[in-house]
């Protein structure tokens, strides 16, 4: 079952410049469960954070599973700092 879940590997830098592409890529994955691989993330900015939060609620509203796995230490730290640890759960 897990093998069928599409996976998106997040890039290392998720800053302001990366936000439009991230939103586009996430939107393209709608319609089924998705798992994001976050091992490479070294920098997470505010706009990409909100894109991920929006994706999470979009998937919830669509009734599909949304998860992020292998969070890099940098990403974990950022999520903890800005009160968005929920993304890592």
């Amino acid at each position: 079952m897990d093998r069928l879940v599409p996976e998106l590997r997040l890039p290392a830098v998720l800053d302001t410049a990366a936000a439009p592409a991230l939103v586009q890529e996430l939107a393209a994955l709608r319609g089924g469960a998705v798992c994001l691989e976050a091992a490479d993330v070294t920098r997470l900015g505010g706009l990409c954070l909100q894109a991920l939060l929006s994706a999470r609620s979009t998937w919830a509203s669509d009734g599909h599973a949304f998860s992020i796995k292998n969070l890099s230490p940098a990403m974990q730290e950022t999520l903890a700092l800005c009160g968005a640890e929920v993304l890592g759960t």
Partner: protein
Amino acid sequence: MAGIRVVFFEECDEHLGELENGLIAIQEGDRDPETINIIFRAVHSIKGGASIFGLEALVGFAHTFENLLTKVRSGEKALDEAVIKTCLKAADVLADLVREANGGAAVEDGKADPLVSTLTALSSGSSAGAEEAEEEDPELAALQFQPVSVSFAELDVAAPKTLAIRFKPGLAMYAKANDAILILQELSRYGEVKAAVNTDALPLLDGLDPREGYLTWHISLLTTQHPSLVREVFEFVENDCELEISEAETIAPIAAPPPPVIEAPPTAPPVSFAPAPAPAPVGPVEAAPVPNQPQTQGSIRVDLDRVDRMIDLVSELVINQSILVQRLAGERFNGQAEVSAALEDLDKLTREIQDSVMAIRAQPVKAVFQRMSRLVREVEAVTRKPVRLVTEGDATEVDRTVIERLSDPLTHMIRNAIDHGIEPPEKRAAAGKPAMGTVKIAAAHRGGRIIIEVSDDGAGINRERVREKAVERGVIGAEDRLTDEETDNLIFAAGFSTADQVSDISGRGVGMDVVRSGVQALGGRITVTSVQGQGSTFTLSLPLTLAVMDGMLVQVGDQGMVVPLTALVESFQVAPGDVTRLGVETTFLHLRGANVPLLDLGAMLGYPRGEDEDGRHVALLVEDDSGQRAALLVNDILGQQQVVIKSLEANYREVPGVAAATILGDGRVALILDVNAILSRRRRVCAEPKAA
């Protein structure tokens, strides 16, 4: 992004200026906590901006510098001489790093690293660290200053308190390359951050504009810092986000983190989102107004090209206005009261517009004066002569075109003042002077010009030596008798600077004649006065702008020419009996007991002789920058007027004897005379007027 970067570097210049000023004030004994805050804010702002652009070397150094300043500000580190000296050096290196980041020269290897160690050691607070730091820096070690205790009671380093912050970044904030996460990270340096994110306004993906900010953060910050200082974290973004900072009186650490905003669904969707609660109101705190809210900024940044373009257009307007006045004066409207009144109003209005536009480009000389304090430190270190720089009239404004070109002459004069003027400490002590020398730069407006004085309390000009050198170099003859003033001014003579004067500091192969040329190129004059044993004063007189000038319009041949009013002493009629001819080409005019050379301007500039040449008997007495006088024979004096200067080099080519051009009211081009150049050629072309 490139535009924002330009603004960042412009702001860096301002911050570096504030830093320099603050440190100098502290060096002079200022212990106002606000001064220390200003210094801290300057370094902090540079760091904040640099981090946005990923300028890591700059961020790293500023961070280390900031750490020491944080300790100073909180009173943990005494503000002793070693700390002040280190901070001054750090300010210099910070300025170098900013310059390097802006594409300037790379900072020399090994310049920043020892200073980072010193800064770190000093901020560590351990005496061992400080000792190490001093060992690393022989200059600091040599200081042997006694630490001075400073009371920081008023600095408000009270017990920890909780600040409630509501922060909602918007599109504009992100568009300017600022990021909410970086702000939160910065905030965490001030204390313990507990943040909760509110996603109420966050749309689903299909309605999400990836550039817009939708999230709101509610942050509890446990900190010892005053809210106004915490607010500085938001300095760059305050106008581009929603921000509220309120102070709670809670002394205890935050008991519990705010409730989670998003209830994470551990299992299956749908996910339920709970709105984030507003920060708990604690005590009698009112949400607004926020204390120490900065006032609305009263300035805007405008591209310099736009200002220059406007100045050009206003110059054209001034010219057109005079054309209009002249044409109407010759027409049927002449003498009509209504027309005259309207023209007068137009004239007044045009001048007001011109003054206002010029005022936009006017800047205080402070920007240049600030650079000099670093120069003094550097020269002081090399010469081992302790020197204090005093500035006066920093707020005096002058056109930025003049400001830009002030730096070189000032640099040279200050180098000279310290290297040649100020005596070594032992000589000063022997002369009963304080060991520390003083160099003073003062600026003031006087008679429509800016006067800048560079003075020192050194030994004064050694007139015997100057005279010897001048004779040796052929500047004067061995038998020439000179007044003290004339002797002092010999140092500006071309060729006076000699090889044995060249040193690492002030020599560099150029002399004061180069300074004088630079000042003259600005339409200025330089003079020196000196009292032996008490010091010298160099006085620069410069125009407030290079765009307009007051001149005397004269007729030379069939051409109109403008003689700068600054060079004009008087105008008078020439009586035939006052003229004496010596040799073939030299003519003198006897004027109130003195003989001055009489120059035929038309002949010197190559104008054809007109029919009425023999009837000429009007002359102008002019004086060049070295005080040399001559009378210029002209056909007629047409009147005094303000003219707009148009570069001849830029529009045509350089013409000897002509400084620039202007356009007259009748639309004709008139040349502006270069009095210095004309007088330097005075021996070559002379003429004799004939009686009418």
